[in-house]
């Protein structure tokens, strides 16, 4: 199949959902063309817009991978949000407890703290699945809520910043801040690491034996089992890996953006990450590209809300519609 033929259903899906949403927007009495212009071009008009887009691109790519890696093994990880928050807590804990260490030790410690905490948050549902066969959809979701209250506890507990109005911890040590690539507007170097992780995941799942076992498990667990792959162990591994990647996203929010732990940092990255993962159909190579596209839409959406008073949720629905149409294109092709 040629590339053009591959991309065509996606293009049609995007156009169809924009048309559907456009009809609704114009019925509400808004200017559709101005709205779409804002959504599509805000990212490219100013340097600030572009950097905003890249800053969204980082957590979106990582959270999408946190969903697709388990999906490759046939498991649904809906706990990316909790794993990201756990990662943020782990990173902040390291950065606050060892605030005086020099950057060369503290920075890796902060990042590692996030990755390990995220992996642990993925490990518990994985263990429950392995040991008791409990549906991972439920446990990963429930762990989001547990993380939500845990982050509230940390942000209002002993590390709380009394000067801030919103639940927030104090700043992490200077050594834990990710170096900046561009200072004004600020872009932290986490983006390099995020891209490297995305490439690494892609190579792992498409070019290595371990990754092949993972994909085989997802494609047909019975056949994989017959060929001697321990499928249950693959489930566990995939959920831990997913958790670690989501934890990294949390660490970046702390070490790169805020330099502290803030309640609400998870935004709606979980849902967007899952939408990206599903639009990519679990193909890790496609994830960064789809994530960039969604980041563009998201930055455009908040600009649209500011200037035209159209709620950002409008764009979220467009994204969900794109997903639905992409899924539908499968059915059309099957017939």
């Amino acid at each position, binding site marked *: 199949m040629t590339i053009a033929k591959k991309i065509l259903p996606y293009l049609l899906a995007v156009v169809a959902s924009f048309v559907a949403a456009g009809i609704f927007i114009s019925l509400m009495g808004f200017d559709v063309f101005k709205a779409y212009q804002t959504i599509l071009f805000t990212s490219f008009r100013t340097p600030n817009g572009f950097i905003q887009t890249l800053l969204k691109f980082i957590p979106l790519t990582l959270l999408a991978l946190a969903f697709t890696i388990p999906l490759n093994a046939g498991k*649904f990880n809906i706990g990316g949000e909790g794993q990201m928050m756990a990662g943020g807590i782990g990173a902040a804990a390291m950065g606050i407890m060892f605030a005086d260490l020099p950057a060369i030790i503290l920075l890796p410690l902060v990042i590692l703290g996030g990755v390990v905490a995220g992996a642990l948050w993925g490990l518990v549902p994985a263990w429950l699945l392995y040991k008791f066969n409990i549906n991972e959809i439920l446990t990963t979701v429930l762990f989001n809520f547990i993380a939500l209250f845990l982050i509230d506890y940390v942000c209002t507990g002993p590390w709380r910043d009394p000067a801030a109005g919103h639940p927030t911890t104090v700043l992490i040590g200077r050594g834990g801040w990710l170096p900046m690539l561009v200072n004004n507007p600020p872009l932290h170097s986490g983006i390099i690491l995020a891209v490297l992780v995305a490439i690494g995941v892609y190579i792992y799942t498409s070019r290595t034996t371990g990754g092949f076992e993972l994909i085989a498990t997802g494609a047909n667990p019975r056949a994989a089992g017959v060929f001697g792959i321990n499928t249950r162990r693959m489930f566990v591994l995939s959920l831990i890996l997913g958790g670690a990647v989501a934890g990294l996203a949390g660490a970046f929010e702390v070490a790169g953006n805020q330099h502290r732990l803030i309640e609400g940092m998870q935004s709606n990255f979980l849902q967007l990450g899952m939408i990206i993962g599903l639009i990519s159909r679990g193909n890790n190579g496609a994830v960064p590209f789809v994530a960039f596209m969604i980041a563009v839409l998201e930055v455009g959406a908040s600009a649209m809300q500011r200037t035209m008073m159209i709620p950002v949720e409008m764009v979220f629905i467009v994204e969900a519609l794109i997903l639905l149409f992409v899924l539908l294109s499968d059915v059309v092709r099957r017939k």
Partner: protein
Amino acid sequence: MDTMIIEFLRLVLLSMVPFVLAGQGTMLGGRTGVFNVAQEGMMLVGASVGFLVSFFSGSIFLGIIVAMLSGALFGFALAYFTTSLKMNQFVIGLSLFFIGLGVSTLLPKLILGITLTPPLIPTLKSIPIPLLSQIPFIGPILFKQNILVYVSVLVSIGLWYFLFRTQKGLELRSVGEYPMTADSLGINTTKMRYWSTIIGGMLIGMAGAYLPMVYAGTFTEGMTMGRGWLAIALTFFGGWSPLPILYGSLFFSAIEVLAFRVQVIGSFLPYQILQMFPYIATILVMIFTFKRSRVPAFLGNNYDREKRSL
């Protein structure tokens, strides 16, 4: 002390309603093999629409009806994509969850604008049942509740009777166990799956509408707080049977009320730990019940009659 216990038990029955309705809705769809995972989104839409319609029409009853219709619409979409188009149930369920999430916040923002003081609707009044509510102790707990408490109990009993005491119910259950056999016996599996998912969606929409009508008097973003997901856990806990789901929801609701009460009274534990309690308790409960839970054999699968085997 006595009044405290009465008040506690009364609240448990009051708070069980969303669990009962969403649990029964999930169960009904699952009994024909459609595993719904969009509850959270569907409940949010039910809450949002139910609130808006009651506010503008002044009639809570109309709000509930429209919320049920919105749930039915989602149920129909789920049935169409999974049963007619044979698409993956989890993927479609998640997509519908996203759409529900977006629609539920979009509608109030578009219709009411962004306000700091959201309008309020009157909450559901309790309807004491004559004579029965006079019984000491039991009366105020069981027979001085709002209408949906009674409805949710009646729905549960009705579903039990339908599923386990009627021919149609047996046919419906067979579709979720082994659709090929059901099909060969002349049961219309497609129709069964559509209707069970649509009516299940209505119940889930009603469960959502209950939230603004009883707790806050208004819609707030994400006000379900995971109750939709907990409903799935409850359905497993209740072994996909109406009456155990009814009892199980008492347990889920008791944990919720207890965590809230202790927070109000104050304890040595930080309040966030108490807020986590319902979710942790649910996970613990699943450890003990998940393995033994009787699950419809065909749950989560799509039936294609043109395939040679299942």
